[in-house]
């Protein structure tokens, strides 16, 4: 079984986001970038399935500018066998990304596609579901547990009401939740070895799809600031303020 895992390069989750003064976006120059956190869970799960002898090959794919390749390299260091970097510039919407991955799926013919449930930059939560619609494959979103069966997966999904279990026939798409597993760190020897693993570079123009954005970002601004609060001297004062001033208890 072959697993394709999609990874995205985003601003590291510990970085304080700064909005550009001209309102055109957020500052990304000289800012620490990392793999989107739930994408790390997606890679980890694929590697675990391979270690359990249930998968034979893991291909990591990213779509984006030159530096996006770092995320593929990291995936190779934790256990992916081969990388694909589809090179693009400018704004990419989830619909465009899912069309790109659809093309790669047609070529690579994976049995499963894994990715994070959501990217922590645009917070869209769309790509996995869209890809699944385009391929007409089953989808299991927000996965917190995956059991590999003969020709299917049994997936536990995190939903608002609790947990839902579905069985999806292979080929299928799974989007991964943070609770799915604990992503491992790459060891230094594996980082060195990953440098020798192949990464195929593909220009998006060679895929013959229209990735023109449909949604215009007119303005990006800081959210309204909270007004400064006060320090209270003790617990009695706190409870009194909550009861009589804020009137919330």
């Amino acid at each position, binding site marked *: 079984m072959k697993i394709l895992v999609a990874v995205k390069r985003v601003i590291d989750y510990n970085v304080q*986001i700064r909005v550009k003064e001209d309102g055109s976006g957020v500052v990304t120059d000289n800012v620490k970038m990392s793999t989107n956190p739930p994408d790390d869970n997606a890679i980890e799960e694929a590697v675990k399935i391979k270690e359990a002898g249930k998968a034979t090959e893991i291909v990591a794919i990213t779509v984006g500018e030159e530096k996006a390749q770092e995320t593929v390299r990291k995936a190779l260091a934790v256990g992916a066998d081969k990388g694909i970097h589809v090179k693009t510039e400018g704004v990419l919407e989830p619909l465009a990304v899912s069309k790109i991955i659809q093309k790669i799926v047609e070529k690579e013919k994976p049995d499963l596609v894994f990715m994070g449930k959501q990217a922590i930059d645009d917070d869209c939560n769309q*790509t996995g579901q869209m890809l699944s*619609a385009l391929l007409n494959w089953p989808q299991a979103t*927000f996965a917190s547990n995956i059991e590999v069966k003969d020709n299917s997966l049994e997936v536990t999904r995190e939903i608002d009401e609790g947990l839902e279990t579905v069985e999806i026939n292979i080929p299928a798409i799974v989007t991964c939740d943070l609770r799915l597993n604990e992503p491992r760190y790459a060891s230094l020897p594996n980082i060195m070895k990953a440098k020798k693993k192949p990464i195929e570079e593909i220009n998006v123009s060679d895929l013959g799809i229209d990735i023109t954005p449909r949604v*215009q970002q007119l303005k990006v601004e800081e959210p309204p600031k909270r007004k400064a609060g006060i*320090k209270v001297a003790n617990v009695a004062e706190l409870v009194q303020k909550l009861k009589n001033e804020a009137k919330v208890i």
Partner: protein
Amino acid sequence: MAVLLIAEHNNKELRPFTLNAATAASQIDTEVHAVIIGQNSENAAKKLSELPVVKKVISIEAPHYENFTAENFAPAIVKLAENYSHIVCSANTFGKNLMPRVAAHLDTSQVSDIIKVISPDTFLRPIYAGNAFATVKTNDAKKCVTIRPTSFEPCESSGGTATIEKGEAGEEFSNTKFIKREEIKSDRPELGTARIVVSGGRGMQSGDNFKLITEVADKLGAAIGASRAAVDAGYISNDHQVGQTGKVVVPDLYIAIGISGAIQHLAGMKESKVIVAINKDGEAPIFSVADYGLEADLFEALPQFMEELNKLNTIQK
């Protein structure tokens, strides 16, 4: 053209966020039609027809709609879509799972999780877990929009008399099989919708110490949250995590206990109406967003907090 609202329900009742999504839909266009897809969902369909903002209900019933599988729902919605300019649903796990599938079938770029309708094609939405707000304009002819339920008031739930039409069911998608749903039964409210959230961080020092939080939460009828640090340290399970990579919460009162206030935690709670921070480090960043800060050792402050709450004659629920 009208707006099509996708109702969320459990085959018996409407789920509450349908009312918030209906409000958002009515701000896009006054002509709101609602589709309800399920099995034996007549009662929920009737409830939907009673929302005054809904002008027409389309009810689609089939056994394979019983468990709300997106692969089954999407084609039925796509079939209706030609009559509508917008398709709207709440951005909870139901809508997040379903809407992109609809959007991809329609070759439309979805606008996720809006917090404000600026005009029928322009919306405000949070990005970077609410650390920035983006104003976006969609140029697609058909607009698929999910709304953040806590940013819109629920609509009136009675007085409407919309007609209920039967819609045509689509084929069953045979490669996805529903197995089971385990609803977490808890006397406490759900983290995402609770009026009060009491959260603990690394300062709790152990999972056992979370019982101090549990006591306060039970007294206040609150949900229990946690910082990523507390989850990573194994004090509490991941489903309690508030923050950029966990849940974003907007309660009336958020009480952060032993939480320093890492950026990614703040992103998940700083829109709360009133924020309380209890931390022994007076320099902790959490105090910069707190309306009421108490610099104190939580192991002394929490028992005192319980005592003070016990003295109150009434506590709002």
